């Protein structure tokens, strides 16, 4: 199983800070497609972090990986 975290407008849209989904063996791009579909959110311009490090669309997820969707940041 995988923990998937949402922030900023995505958290508002999903209504949860995180959800549990099994994404084992899926790529980041596939994970995005699945979560977009499930929650009706647009993840096209959103970066993805796996275990607190930015990941590419082709990276493959393992069981237990923590996935976070990172909208364009606006700190500072």
């Amino acid at each position: 199983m995988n923990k998937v975290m949402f922030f900023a407008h995505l958290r508002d849209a999903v209504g949860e800070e995180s959800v549990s989904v099994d994404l084992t063996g899926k790529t980041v791009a596939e994970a995005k497609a699945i979560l977009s579909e499930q929650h009706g959110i647009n993840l096209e311009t959103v970066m993805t972090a796996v275990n607190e490090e930015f990941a590419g669309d082709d990276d493959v997820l393992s069981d237990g990986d923590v996935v976070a969707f990172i909208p364009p940041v606006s700190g500072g």
Partner: protein
Amino acid sequence: MNFEISKEPIDTQSIIDKVIQREAGAITTFIGTVRELTAGKKTLYLIYEAYESMAVKKLEQIGREIEERWTGAKVAISHRVGKLEITDIAVVIAVSTPHRADSYEANRYAIERIKEIVPIWKKEHWEDGEEWIGNQLETVAYPTGKPEESDLDE
């Protein structure tokens, strides 16, 4: 703990103290404060949210990048989260270096990198609404195509 996400108001002097070194002749600080007007719109207050554990790692990464690029540099960064009023401090960056040119450049580098890679988000609250702000560097399109009034050079 030179890199932190803070739920409490940031004390600038305590961040400066972290970078004092006998080899340094220059310390620069950048203090990002909440501005009342952005693109003519009056802000009431802001909410900052962070992916805290990752944000700390990314601040540490920026510190390492600076120390590799500017010899002898020492860096400390604190970013606030939660509700901030006008003139409240959102971020303090302190950089000490032997020579002053490096200190300005390294400090500037830090704020630009924060706006690129540190998972922190700002929600602006106005009298007539609120909105999560994104994409200050215009490197990607904001998901909703908004905000058109976002300020790239805050």
